[in-house]
């Protein structure tokens, strides 16, 4: 448990998180749930939580059967993901993912559209309109 100056504690936590995420291939700079900016890795927005983002570097770019191109394969880890006739939706800086696979209520496999910047806001929206978002490096 860290003690001392709260600002130093938060900075250390952020740097530690960045180091961990850099090893995995992406890191969260900050997470924005419905409540605003926070340095914590996840924030509850209803029952929907994003814990981390990583890029599956074994997956290659490609094209869906309907001709939609995709680039990176992104794994979104969290809690509370579910789907009805629609959703969950995943957006990168507001752009819809090319494909979203709800592998479990804790993991999404997302095919990102081409042309995204290295650092994006990744937003997940459930069918009940609950949303969570995180800034992440996905290159």
């Amino acid at each position: 448990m860290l003690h001392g100056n709260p600002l130093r504690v938060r900075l250390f936590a952020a740097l530690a998180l960045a180091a961990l995420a850099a090893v995995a291939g992406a890191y969260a700079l900050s997470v924005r749930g419905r409540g605003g900016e926070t340095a914590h890795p996840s924030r509850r927005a209803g029952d929907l939580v994003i814990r981390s983002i990583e890029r599956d570097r074994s997956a290659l770019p490609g094209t869906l059967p309907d001709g939609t191109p995709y680039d990176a394969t992104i794994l979104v880890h969290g809690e509370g993901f579910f789907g009805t006739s629609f959703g969950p939706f995943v957006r990168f800086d507001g752009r819809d993912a090319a494909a979203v696979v709800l592998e479990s209520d804790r993991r999404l496999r997302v095919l990102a559209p081409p042309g995204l910047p290295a650092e994006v806001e990744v937003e997940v929206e459930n069918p009940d309109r609950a949303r969570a978002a995180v800034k992440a490096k996905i290159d």
Partner: protein
Amino acid sequence: MRQRSLLHALAGPLALLVLLSSAAVAQGPLVPTLPWLLREAGPYTAASKDWTNGNVLVTNPTGGGNISVQHFGVVWFPDDGTGNPLPPITPYPLVVFAHGRFHSPPYIGNNHKEATYLLKHLATWGFVVASVNLDVVGQYSSPAAIPQRGELVNKTVEYFASQPAYAPFIDWSSIVYIGHSRGGEGVFAAVQQNPAWKSSIRGIGAIAPTNFQNYAIPVNAFVLYGSQDGDVNNGWPIELYGQTQNAGWKAFRYIEGANHFWFTDTINFGLETNAQLTRPQHHEISRTYWATWCAALCYGDRPSYVRIAGDKEIAWSGNFKIHRIFASTRQITVDNFEQLPKNVFRNSLGGPNTLTGLVNPAETFLSGGSFYNKTNALTASWATPAKYDADLLGGLDVVGYGYVSVNVLQRYNVAANPFGQPQRFHLSIIDSLGNAAKLDNTDVAPWPYPFTTNPNGPVKSVLKTFRFPLTAFTAANPLVDLKSLRRVVVDFDITATGDFALDDVVFTQ
């Protein structure tokens, strides 16, 4: 001025009779509301068994070859008292049911059992009902894996055809697909995939189907949709119905106060806590319509056809407001407003249309705003008495066609349509000698304002079919010669103002 007739003189006593006989919202005196047998359980005792076909291959929704998925479900059937199929006197038609997507524990892997109220009901009426699990492709949020649902529906038919415990008892010339939500669109996909037994698919049905793939296939289709659907709340079921090419019969029911997930046994979706109808009422409507649809398709049951067409209304347990669209291919089209180039002054028979008092008449594709029907129609408004008068050319022989039918809607959220108020019109037929008979829309049904009680989505202005029996015209004026009709006239001369769409002016069976 409204024309008096024998029918109007009887309206009071007839209305009282309807009121005494049922709790349903009465239609007009020409559409009696009657108790309906298929609302209740049928004569068979029903039983069920789980089934499994191991793993099968379906195409990968994200491309790159096939994927292997489990193929399993539950089957309901008439019971012999030991939990096995009762040997039939005549083989049972097969229904394949495709459930919707609710991809969340604990429903994943069990959604095929979330319509037991329906599966069991159909089995009591002598159907073998195979429900296939589609959660095996439910992880695909987008693409929506609709074709894959179709593949699994078709593989279910193949599976049961191979099973000695079921195959000998099934009428393989009589198959119906019914689905809900993504499964509802999946049954369209299944037909679109042209299975070898396609000619045996008597028709399909869908509760609140999605429309990811924009299918426009020819098939007998029946679609149900609730005005308070909080999941597929974007009008897609109306669009899919409009896109579907009529192969014989096409029917739609827009149900005020019904939502999406209360057509399942137990699923609740957070956005849908405000349905006006209870879950048991959803089940009553669903099981009754699907038993009726299947009986009409598979048994050629004329009373069932009449209920699907809406010429007799079903006596429901409550004051349900259910708004129908119906089309038969057995028709003479007076005007469907589909001809090119667009010309409101020329009908589909090539005759002239006289439009009097109509403001801004146009042939409009009903899509966008509050329109979802995806068909061309005449749109216009009136601020003084107005009419649409179609010249049929020569003398049209409509003997053998029981009805003259029109589809109309009130446009939502315009000043010309007072909020929440019904509109009115008259329909007249006139023969070559000028003999005329006129009926009021209320002889058939009210023309309601669009259902507005849906905070979960947009209000939809939906076409409604009014089928006027030709015998009612000849009863009003026996001089009218059905062998030589010259004009069909729709008068908007009762209410002060209105804004509407008119489509499918037809003589039909």
